[in-house]
């Protein structure tokens, strides 16, 4: 059989392009259902979510849940949205990402649905305010988190300590613990390089105070203000004293499993971390770990006189939006409402799977009787928060946030002064503020501006 030359050339070209075009077309919808991508920390969470949040949805349109890896869901979503496809319900890691998607026109405004479903009544005002982009509601907070201090009660008892309620008590315990060869604060960033920003968040909100941070986020106070420089200096001193992770070098190689194990064994005294740890910690304490260790938590304490005694550093762990290209926005909004409403389902998610809840108001009565008292106590306290602080990963624009942890590592390793760190932060922040990239920060009393 002979093939004419032109036909052969045409066929060759088509054959070459076909796989590429097929690949490009991937990611489109395969059914009329609501397409939803989400990532989970473990199988328990995944099973609960499938059962209680996906299968239990009574709406007329079913939901197709596609599980993506935690490490790449953001990039996958970003790529799909850029290609004009992606899920109907768009998940992001927080307001800074929402702002970027909003600027690109990927998200549908939610105001009509907010009014229809009464989201302003169901969800915490601070969380809704933090989800605004240029005054427009383009995302709903799907989960929120705070900073807490974990400890092993037996370790504190053995040394005659109690959870510190001020800087003096904290420093006294750290000094004594270090002298005894213990790690005062189980900390490290080997598994998650941005972890350093957790403690920068603590220093800013509990030394400088939420009022100062709020003013700075609005551009009314520079990050070079001495109160911020002093906050960073203090935290850096803690690191250099070997309080964070045992030593500066160990801090960079401490992994989370090692740190939890040290907390359980009594080799470490405290762990200052996010509320997400309440689901991670279970594997290292009690029966699952083959020990009789227990854990508890306490709120963070002020590091300077004049800072409120109880400040809850709040962060939005994830948000949900509606894809501007979704052919079924109304059905998607209905499902979105289902997911972020019902305090009892949120409380069950906390109790049974360690899921982070949407910022709905929770009371003790919302939790099932079997719920771990430590978890329910935290979220009931958060629902009644009088003063909030600002996590850097939620309220800082993207470039400033990255700088927060990459450059702070240079401060406590002695490569950069606290003043230069703050000056660099301020420079990048001013630029992003000018470009309108700073997420809306509600006032410290939890109410929107």
């Amino acid at each position, binding site marked *: 059989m002979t093939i004419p*030359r032109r036909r052969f*050339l045409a066929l060759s070209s088509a054959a070459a392009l076909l796989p590429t075009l097929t690949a490009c077309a991937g990611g489109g919808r395969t059914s009329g259902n609501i397409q939803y991508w989400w990532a989970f920390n473990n199988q328990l969470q995944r099973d609960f979510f499938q059962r209680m949040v996906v299968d239990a949805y009574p709406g007329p349109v079913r939901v197709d849940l596609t599980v993506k890896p935690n490490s790449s869901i953001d990039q996958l979503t970003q790529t799909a949205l*850029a290609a004009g496809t992606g899920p109907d319900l768009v998940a992001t890691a927080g307001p800074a990402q929402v702002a970027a998607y909003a*600027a690109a026109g990927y998200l549908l405004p939610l105001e009509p649905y907010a009014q229809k479903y009464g989201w302003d009544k169901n969800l915490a005002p601070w969380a809704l305010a933090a989800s605004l982009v240029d005054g427009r509601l383009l995302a709903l907070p799907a989960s929120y988190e705070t900073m807490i201090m974990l400890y092993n009660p037996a370790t504190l008892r053995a040394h005659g300590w109690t959870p510190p309620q001020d800087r003096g008590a904290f420093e006294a315990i750290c000094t004594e613990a270090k002298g005894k060869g213990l790690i005062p604060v189980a900390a490290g960033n080997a598994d998650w390089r941005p972890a350093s920003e957790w403690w920068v968040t603590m220093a800013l909100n509990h030394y400088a105070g939420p009022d100062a941070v709020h003013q700075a986020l609005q551009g009314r106070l520079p990050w070079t203000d001495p109160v911020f420089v002093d906050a960073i200096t203090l935290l850096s001193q803690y690191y250099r004293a070997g309080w964070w992770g045992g030593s500066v070098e*160990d801090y*960079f*190689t401490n992994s989370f499993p090692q740190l939890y194990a040290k907390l359980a064994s009594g080799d470490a005294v405290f762990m200052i971390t996010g509320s997400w740890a309440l689901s991670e910690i279970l594997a290292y304490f009690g029966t699952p770990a083959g020990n009789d260790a227990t854990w508890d938590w306490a709120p963070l304490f002020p590091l300077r006189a004049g800072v409120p005694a109880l400040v809850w550093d709040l962060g939005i762990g994830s948000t949900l939006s509606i894809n501007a290209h979704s052919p079924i926005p109304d059905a998607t909004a209905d499902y979105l409402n289902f997911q972020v409403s019902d305090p009892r389902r949120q409380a069950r998610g906390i109790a049974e799977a360690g899921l982070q809840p949407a910022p709905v108001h929770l009371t003790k009565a919302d939790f099932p009787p079997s719920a771990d008292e430590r978890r329910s106590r935290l979220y009931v306290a958060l629902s009644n928060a009088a003063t909030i602080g600002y996590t850097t990963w939620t309220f800082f624009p993207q470039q400033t946030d990255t700088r927060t942890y990459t450059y702070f590592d240079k401060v406590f*390793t002695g490569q950069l002064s606290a003043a230069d760190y703050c000056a660099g932060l301020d420079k990048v922040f001013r630029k992003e503020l000018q470009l309108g990239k700073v997420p809306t920060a509600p006032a410290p009393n939890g109410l929107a501006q």
Partner: protein
Amino acid sequence: MSATIAPARAPSRRRHRPARRRALIAWAFMLPLIAINALVVLGPSVSALYFSLTDWSGLGSARWIGLDNYLELASDPEFLGAVWHNILWTAFFLVVPMAMGLFGAFALTRIRRFRLLFRVAYFVPYIMATVVTAAVWKNLLSPQLGIGKVLGINALGSTSLALPAVAIVNNWAWWGFLVVVFLAAMQDVNPNLYEAAALDGAGAFGQFWHITLPSIRPTFMFLGLMTIIWSFLSFDYVYILTQGGPAGATDVLSTLLYRDAFTSLRAGYASAIGVVMAAISGIVVLTYLVVRKRKGWAI
């Protein structure tokens, strides 16, 4: 001697048709590759060049900012630090694994028994998944589990030791590949040259220096060239072992590019870093081509 020059025959369409047909068929076979390369190499390269002149976030539209990204790069301490780390990395890989590869291959040419066994043993780390190798070494270097505990050194946590430590791990997986390639080249060297050299009283080092090295120069130069290019693209071991830490001590251009593109959402700036990386590789290749032409090397 006389010669007559016959008048040139007019070109015949008939005689040229097979040649043209062959050329067309050759192009037809190349077309798929050209199409794919245009799609996945040329297209992104041109767009990266364009985006490097914008403030693109990686999402939505881009705003033209001219050379601002490049001007910022020139004074960005993170970028300059990463370039310096890449230079150190390149120097290390041009010297240590190349020397180990040459020595290992030369040693293998001198033995007859177990040669295959050693070749396999050297090569196995190269075919292991990077993530596996890195995880094994992470534990080995851990100050709580492995060598680090015994020696009391936390290599991956030290700002002065982390880069050499990562380079050593990468080298562990890399040098065996060089051994195999150098060995293949050395086996092509005419054995009579060694016999003649031995008769002239040359020892093992003399034979290596005066016969082996000049004979495998094309392979040596090629691997040197590729080492420079690959060194400026290195990413995997650095990212898995340290993610650029501690405190940026192992940040190289590729980890910086990744962070700017996907964490800071500065795809335009990341594109500028990518263009600089490509430019460095281009300069290296051009320099090599010029030297090759001047020296009259075949490769």
